[in-house]
């Protein structure tokens, strides 16, 4: 009897230690968040717009925004038509379709379903209409103009810096989006057989003129090193093309902190950006070869997911979307990542919270957001939102302004 009591007490003690450790991780790694003093000075409005088109898809997941001569263009990759589609966002007009199977380009066999990223346009960026940069399957950077003339092709395999650890340069629109820092294109370095014992740079800046690659002193955060990279599907570093001049803002999908690198003095500042609902740090997850692979799916559903940080140069604000952790089991049924509430946080330039708002369920598609002078665009085409008009692209524009 005494043994049983002892065993129960021991179990109780272990459970206490387990939960204490979880909380202490959050206390240790998540930076305190500051509230802005003038939150009531801001108002938020949402308006809906439509752009007539005939593109067979509900939304673009690989796209860029070009601001040229004060006009805003959406340049999106359409996997179903193997094309680059260009829209005038201000006039709400479809302008042009560039066929990627043109003989002028050496692109073939693209995956229509856009599942196989080695046969896809993974990322797009544009300096102007004469310089549209495509990342083709993380194999080549192709620079072309709107007449489909190929200006330059850079093989990504041929420019990797000599290193003891094999690396590969990658970028993905929804994850580490390539962006310009000065004149250099910033990409992510991916390491194979990485052991999490030594810190290695994750960001690399590519000079498009001479294909010279330079490491930036940015690594994964302390938490991912502490858990030896065991964050399941949620272990990425994420970036946005909407950057404040002379700074690089980045974050990690697995924690709510936001980081800023200043290339002038090589300093990194970490800001707290906690969500008030749910967890702010993803739990670690171990995986052995004979484990059920669905363990990662459960982990994905039951942990938060933080998206890229978008700088709004017109309003001097930052935006960050995130998905809240939920329980996978829902009575006899199961929740999926599609059932996770989407939250938008708005910060001032000191990363003090101005607004935190939970968006309506099953309305917006993740990773469809971008910024223009009009505001923050997001596509109301959640997979479970079955209202689909094939003849137009739809956006909601979230506009934050100061009260007059």
């Amino acid at each position, binding site marked *: 009897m005494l043994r049983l009591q002892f065993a129960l007490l021991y179990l109780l003690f272990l459970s206490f230690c387990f939960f204490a450790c979880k909380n202490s991780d959050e206390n240790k790694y998540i930076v305190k968040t500051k509230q802005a003093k003038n939150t009531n000075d801001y108002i938020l409005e949402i308006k809906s717009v439509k752009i007539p088109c005939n593109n067979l898809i509900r939304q673009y997941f690989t796209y860029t925004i070009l601001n040229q001569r004060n006009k805003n263009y959406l340049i999106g990759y359409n996997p179903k038509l193997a094309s680059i589609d260009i829209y005038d966002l201000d006039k709400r007009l479809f302008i042009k379709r560039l066929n990627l199977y043109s003989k002028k380009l050496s692109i073939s066999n693209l995956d*229509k*379903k856009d*599942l*196989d*990223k080695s046969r896809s346009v993974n990322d797009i960026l544009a300096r102007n209409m004469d310089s549209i940069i495509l990342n083709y399957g993380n194999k080549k950077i192709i620079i072309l103009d709107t007449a489909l003339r190929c200006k330059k092709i850079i093989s990504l395999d041929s420019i990797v810096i000599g290193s003891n650890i094999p690396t590969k340069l990658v970028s993905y629109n929804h994850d580490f989006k390539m962006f310009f820092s000065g004149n250099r294109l910033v990409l992510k370095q991916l390491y194979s057989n990485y052991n999490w014992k030594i810190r290695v740079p994750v960001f690399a800046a590519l000079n498009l003129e001479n294909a010279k690659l330079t490491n930036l002193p940015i690594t994964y955060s302390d938490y991912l090193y502490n858990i030896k990279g065991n964050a399941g599907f949620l272990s990425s570093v994420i970036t946005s093309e909407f950057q404040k001049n002379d700074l690089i803002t980045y974050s990690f999908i697995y924690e709510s902190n936001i980081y800023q690198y200043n290339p002038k003095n090589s300093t990194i500042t970490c800001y707290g950006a906690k969500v008030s609902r749910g967890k702010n740090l993803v739990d670690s997850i171990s995986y052995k070869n004979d484990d059920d*692979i*669905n363990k*990662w*799916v459960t982990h994905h559903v039951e942990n938060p997911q933080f998206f890229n940080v978008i700088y709004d140069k017109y309003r001097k604000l930052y935006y960050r979307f995130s998905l809240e952790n939920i329980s996978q089991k829902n009575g*006899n*049924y*199961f929740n*999926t990542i*599609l059932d996770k509430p989407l939250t938008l946080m708005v910060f001032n330039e000191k990363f003090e919270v101005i607004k935190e708002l939970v968006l309506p369920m099953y309305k917006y598609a993740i990773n469809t957001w971008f910024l223009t002078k009009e505001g923050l665009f997001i596509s109301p085409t959640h*997979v*479970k939102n*079955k209202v689909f008009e094939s003849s137009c692209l739809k956006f909601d524009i979230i506009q934050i302004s100061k009260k007059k």
Partner: protein
Amino acid sequence: MKILSIILFLLVIISCNNEKSSVDEKHLDMYFREKQNTDLTKLNNFFIVVISGNCGSCTEKTIKFLKQLGDKKENKFRDYKKIVIIPSNNAEVLDSIKNSNIQFIVDEGFELEKYGVNFQRNAFFEFKNAKLVYKDWLYLDNVDTVAKKYSFILK
């Protein structure tokens, strides 16, 4: 006492393994009853293949396997019903497997996941007398293993 402990331990292990199989059975049964108006217990012998929505799930080898499974001239499994569930984002694969005796179910709106029938890899199930007797992954070289078990030749 020691022998009793070992027997108890083995019983626990066996019951755990059975539980995993029965969980898959339970989820499939609920999905078919509620979404397809089909009572699996009345089907007797059948194969179910659940295609994953992930990249690389519909490889050439998997398509060859499905063609063999649905071959109308094949006699060995004549009395088996063959069902393939495929997520809508992968449904274009159906174009490659026309004229077969497979019943294809296209999962629009990710309903499978709601019923716990979501796998990161393609899953293959054999039911005999409405009981799950075999489960394996149709994934990379494992397709060969499953094909060999059923004497399918992946030409």
